[in-house]
């Protein structure tokens, strides 16, 4: 299975057998292709599976779609869950609106108010939408729906046509709203052991709220809200 290499052999005169047995294996396994298992991935295979799109546009395919075309696709494939204007239905996500709500008591995190990159919209619609038939839209349809949802959020004009050149240029309103470095730990509790506080007040109790499904018997479908 594995071959012995020059370095370990040189060590042979100075090392004991136990160490020798492990050194060549570790050394060789660091080489690319050491095991040689599997098949080389061809360009065609990679192209078919490599569907991710980055903010700089890397991964966006040929094709295009307009806001108007997107409206038609949206009404057929998206509106039943997201509402005709992206207002959301039931617990399915709202896609538009919520501008300036991020500091409010009940923030609405939508494409317009929250999403930092337009590329993510194309990537996600393409990989996972429509929810009930993922990866069933053509690239042109994905461009069109992307344009439509951006327009619903007043991020692009009604004559916008999305393609691999225009989409990476779209600036999202909340682009600068993120810190991409974890600041935690930010809370520093102390390990106090005695007389740690003067008084203890219970401010909230789950008792009597009737929101908890049963934890005995069969699955409890009764409590819907």
């Amino acid at each position, binding site marked *: 299975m594995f071959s012995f290499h020059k370095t370990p052999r040189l060590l042979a005169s100075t090392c004991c057998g136990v160490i020798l047995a492990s050194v060549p294996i570790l050394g060789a396994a660091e080489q690319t*292709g050491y095991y040689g298992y599997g098949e080389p991935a061809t360009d065609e295979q990679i192209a078919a599976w490599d569907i991710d*799109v980055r903010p700089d546009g890397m991964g966006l395919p040929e094709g295009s779609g307009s806001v108007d075309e997107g409206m038609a696709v949206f009404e057929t494939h998206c509106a039943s869950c997201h509402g005709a204007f992206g207002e959301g239905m039931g617990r399915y996500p709202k896609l538009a609106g919520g501008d300036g709500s991020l*500091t409010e008591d009940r923030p609405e995190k939508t494409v317009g108010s929250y999403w930092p990159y337009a590329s993510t919209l194309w990537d996600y619609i393409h990989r996972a939408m429509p929810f009930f038939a993922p990866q069933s839209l053509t690239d042109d349809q994905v461009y069109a729906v992307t344009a439509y949802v951006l327009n619903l959020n007043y991020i692009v004009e009604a004559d916008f046509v999305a393609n691999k050149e225009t989409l990476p240029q779209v600036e999202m309103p909340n682009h600068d709203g993120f810190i991409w470095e974890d600041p935690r730990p930010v809370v520093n509790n102390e*390990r106090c052991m005695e007389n740690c506080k003067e008084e*203890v007040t219970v401010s909230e109790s789950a008792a009597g709220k009737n929101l908890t499904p049963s934890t005995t018997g069969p699955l409890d479908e009764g409590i819907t809200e």
Partner: protein
Amino acid sequence: MLGKLRRLNQDASKIALEESERLPSEERRRFLRSGLFTAGGAMVGGALAGIAPKALASTQFPPEIPPWTRTLGPGVVTDPYGVPSPFEKDVIRRNVPWLTADKVSSISFTPLQHLKGIITPNGLFFERHHAGRPEIDPQQHRLMIHGLVDRPIILSMEDLQRFPSVSQINFIECPANGGMEWRGAQLNSLQFLHGMVSCAEWTGVRLSTLLQEVGIKPEGKWLLAEGADGAAMTRSIPLEKALDDVIVAYAQNGEALRREQGYPIRLVVPGWEGNTHVKWLRRLEVGDKPWMQREETSKYTDLMPDGTAHGFTWVMEAKSVITSPCPEMPLKSKGVCQIEGLAWSGRGKVKAVDVSVDGGQNWQQAQLREPVMSKSLTRFSLEWKWDGNPALLQSRVIDETGYVQPTLAQLKQARGTNSIYHKNAIQTWKVNGDGSVVNVQLS
């Protein structure tokens, strides 16, 4: 085939149980005996094993000699794949219907109140699917590794198992665990409050071994992991972590991964948000920048009170919870009882756990049960003499980095109430005079 047989078996058991419960105890005994000796066969035998104790328990204490001591039980391979006793039927994953739009993109919770030790049985490991659970034939599944690598490859599941394997015990926790409680106490249940955490022994191939095999180009800094499910779930992971302790796992507690856990393969990213442990893994791509996918921008980012959001908050900070007593497991009587619970940290080992019975005024150090392992659940216990008065129980973990689990008030002060994720605050259980236990929050 086997699954169908098991279901039949359980159905038979249920029917027999209902049958026997209608009979007086003497008749019940006769019913059981006749069942065993006249019908024979694995199915009826299996049914008997299930019904005997429950139907007769009230009359079988000493000095009685129970019938199961005086008869033969069903033979081996009655259940070719063993299932829990029917008396454990309450010990199941459960969901909160009002939490999500449907069960396809949803979550179920581990019944922590019933579990012992630190390992979660495979059938009780919490579930989080973004597009349901795919049914994947491992023969038809491939893992592609490509991008900024010297040798892009496609591996079959058999290929993967030829690489050197490792096993490690790690918890996985959804960062939304407890996320329903930022604004107040809502759910009165350990299972629903904290059951988005589970722990298993994972076996697979070190990601570093696979990346070594394909050869990372010098510009490679990030890894994209992608699932084969209908969400094609993705996360960007920095190579530093990928090369540290991440594995491509094909086994869970000694057997193949369960479908709910990513069969045939998943990523295990110890100590990091559950959603980074991409299930049904089909593709790993090396790149020079993160991909800013939906699940790391619009979701799994933490909104702060000032309107900014924190992204790439991967680590699950230290957390602990008392699992007994809890709302599902009230105290039975005054006197000596064992307070037990679980503690864990995404940054390493649990160093200590303290327990308070007076709402955090005074604390006592609990005992840690071996084994205490990095990025694993750790069980703790403390003996307590309950005097029958109301009490406020809390546990507080300290991990090996010195991090002390915060109070909810401290956490809310820092994060507000709209961050959804990473609520690792100290849990308070109120013990009432009758021994019942309620989820409460302190101001």
